[in-house]
């Protein structure tokens, strides 16, 4: 049995010997084709992006996404006006103009009150702050010609809706995560309401994974025909170094928030440490969970084998990845998981929780149920103990992560702008 050359399996080959539908099982990221809408803009588009954070002061995937997608959109010849509540500084991008309210709403370093991420009581002026941002966005004048208004997540949906309506332009919304996920099932009503307002008002909604798209359809009753998937991507690092196979660092990079499941990382570490010598677990990132995680590490008696680095710069992160043996993203909820894709792009074998969006586009990662500490520990130990496995997964993962990048994602985004503009009757 099993002599079959898979390329000759039924349905895989058509009569002319070309790969058939079975071989093309993994479809394009834009799932439902935009038949009838042009796939390319015939003139530069003027995009108002209602954003939130932007590098260098960013804490998560939203900032990375905003930077990369605006950069690629402008490379395609389009113009982006990026709105943010924060006063900068901003990593400059040719063709992108930034505007922020005269009064910045807060110090970027302290702009996420812990209560927001944990879903506990909201005793900071955060709600008022986003109200102010929305009012400012909604009242913006003198923007010049605009083709499309594009809002990210819930922060500015109310203002974006008002602006789009007043300008007679379509609203496009990208959802990077939902309040249900971020709050681990204890959502804030006022945040849900803003997400819902955005989903309802947008002519097209972009989700960063199929999993998230389904959630928007199920829980936000979004019309499936208007919800598209565009995955995140990574940029090839200019100074990628080869990994020293003797090093045994197991790495987590990301916010220390409840939804990230870092406690699972530590519990798995406690099982790996007794059986694998010379292993160091590194946690890079900051967030409200830090004190609790530190205590957990102490309680598990692995304090000397875990290193908490706090916030790391982009350069430091690249160095960490270059030296890591294994990358772990154990999130309870992870709509996409750019950090995992970055690790793969750096050639680091990667373990993610099964529900991560990134798991949808990669076949060379280990997927584990987020609650399965034992399985995380096994996978980590296997990757540390079997160098052949580490090398094979690292190579294939690197290739997979880099085969489609931000330029492809920007082109997919433009197609959605064109669809939304056509639906709203904006001439091209």
């Amino acid at each position, binding site marked *: 049995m099993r*002599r079959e050359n898979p*390329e*000759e399996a*039924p349905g895989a080959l058509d*009569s002319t010997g070309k790969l058939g539908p079975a071989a093309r099982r993994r479809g394009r990221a834009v799932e439902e084709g935009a038949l009838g809408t042009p796939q390319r803009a015939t003139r530069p588009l003027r995009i108002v992006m209602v954003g939130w954070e932007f590098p260098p002061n960013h804490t998560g995937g939203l900032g990375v996404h905003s930077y990369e997608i605006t950069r690629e959109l402008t490379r395609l010849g389009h113009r982006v006006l990026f709105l943010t509540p924060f006063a900068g500084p901003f990593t400059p991008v040719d063709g992108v103009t930034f505007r922020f309210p005269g009064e910045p709403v807060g110090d970027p370093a302290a702009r996420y009150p812990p209560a927001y991420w944990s879903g506990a009581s909201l005793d900071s002026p955060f709600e008022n702050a986003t109200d102010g941002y929305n009012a400012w966005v909604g009242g913006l004048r003198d923007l010049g010609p605009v083709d499309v208004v594009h809002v990210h997540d819930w922060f500015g949906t109310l203002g974006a809706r008002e602006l789009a309506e007043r300008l007679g332009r379509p609203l496009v919304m990208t959802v990077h995560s939902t309040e249900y996920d971020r709050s681990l099932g204890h959502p804030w009503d006022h945040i849900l309401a803003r997400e819902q307002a955005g989903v309802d008002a947008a002519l097209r909604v972009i989700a960063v994974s199929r999993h998230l798209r389904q959630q928007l359809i199920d829980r936000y009753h979004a019309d499936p025909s208007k919800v598209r998937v565009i995955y995140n991507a990574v940029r090839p690092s200019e100074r990628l170094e080869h990994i020293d196979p003797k090093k045994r660092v197991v790495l987590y990079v990301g916010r220390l928030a409840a939804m990230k499941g870092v406690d699972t990382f530590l519990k798995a570490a406690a099982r790996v440490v007794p059986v694998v010598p010379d292993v160091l677990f590194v946690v890079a990132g900051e967030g409200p969970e830090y004190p609790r995680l530190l205590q957990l590490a102490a309680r598990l008696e692995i304090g000397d084998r875990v290193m908490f680095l706090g916030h790391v710069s982009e350069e430091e992160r690249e160095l960490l990845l270059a030296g890591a043996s294994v990358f772990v993203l154990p999130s309870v909820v992870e709509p996409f998981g750019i950090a995992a894709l970055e690790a793969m792009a750096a050639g680091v074998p990667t373990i993610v929780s099964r529900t991560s969006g990134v798991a949808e586009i990669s076949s060379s990662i*280990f997927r584990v149920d987020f609650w399965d500490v034992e399985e995380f520990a*096994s996978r980590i130990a296997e990757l540390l103990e*079997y160098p*052949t496995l580490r090398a*094979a997964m690292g190579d294939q993962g690197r290739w997979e992560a880099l085969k489609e990048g931000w330029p492809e994602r920007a082109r997919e985004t433009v197609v959605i702008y064109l669809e939304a503009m056509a639906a709203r009757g904006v001439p091209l």
Partner: protein
Amino acid sequence: MIERLRALYATGRVALLAETYYHSLAFLVPPPELAEEVAQHRAMLEREFGARPSVLRMTELAYSDDLARFAESQRFTGMLAEGWEGVLGGQPPTYRYCAASAPTVNLLLRHYRLSDDVGFRFSSREWSEHPLTADKYARWLAATPGEVVGLFMDFETFGEHHAARTGILEFLSALPLEVARHPHLEWATVEEAIAGHPRAPLSVPVTMSWADQNRDLGAWLGNDLQRSAFEAAKKVGVVARRSSDPAVLEDWRKLLTSDHFYYMYVSGHGADQGVHQYFSSYESPYDAYANYMNALTDLRRRALDRLGVPVLK
């Protein structure tokens, strides 16, 4: 299942072939592993069916001059091999051949095109010959020049690879009647087919199989994962033998089964892993490798325990 196979064998129209008991890659392991596994399989056939097969089929239709020598040493009179152009040098796959390295071993070659028409392509709507009917197929057989057409397909072809609704079972039951319409065609068991004088000797210096375009062992030992796992298994084999524990040896032999290595197959960059995973029970080749190595590591520990060797961590 065994009862039904016994009934089938009792009709006298069926041949049973010898192979390795564990469907293994034992032919790549130092002796006497291969001889022992083939002997174990022969003993089983004798015990369960009262059969004494004279023809050997190696795992995944592996064949080489060396394997023919082995077959001769075990007193087999024939072997199966792939009827591949790469070794036939322009001769048809429908002649009788003997092994160049062991002239007492006659060869029955698999006609892979006609076999795969049923085995792979039968239910493919994209195939220009779809649907394949029994009378059409019988006409193809009748029009094939030569002495013997070796048709070999998996048992799973009938009802699993091709579900019953594709008509594969009706095809199978209609075929004998359709073949009977062609007076120059008749059915033969493997022993009958290889009897008689071979036309020519066939030399196959490098091991050939029935997989992939290259007909080599690449599907099992083509990448680093597979080779590393197999090398590790060979090393564990040394201690498993020395442990003199039958349970340890048996488990090690199970780990030589070719399928384990097939699951670790990684497609090249650009090809879709999904298609290659068609036959695997694992989520990915990496899962397959990790799982295999864990099992092997445990077995090594058991073997060393029997030998009283402390395991250094």
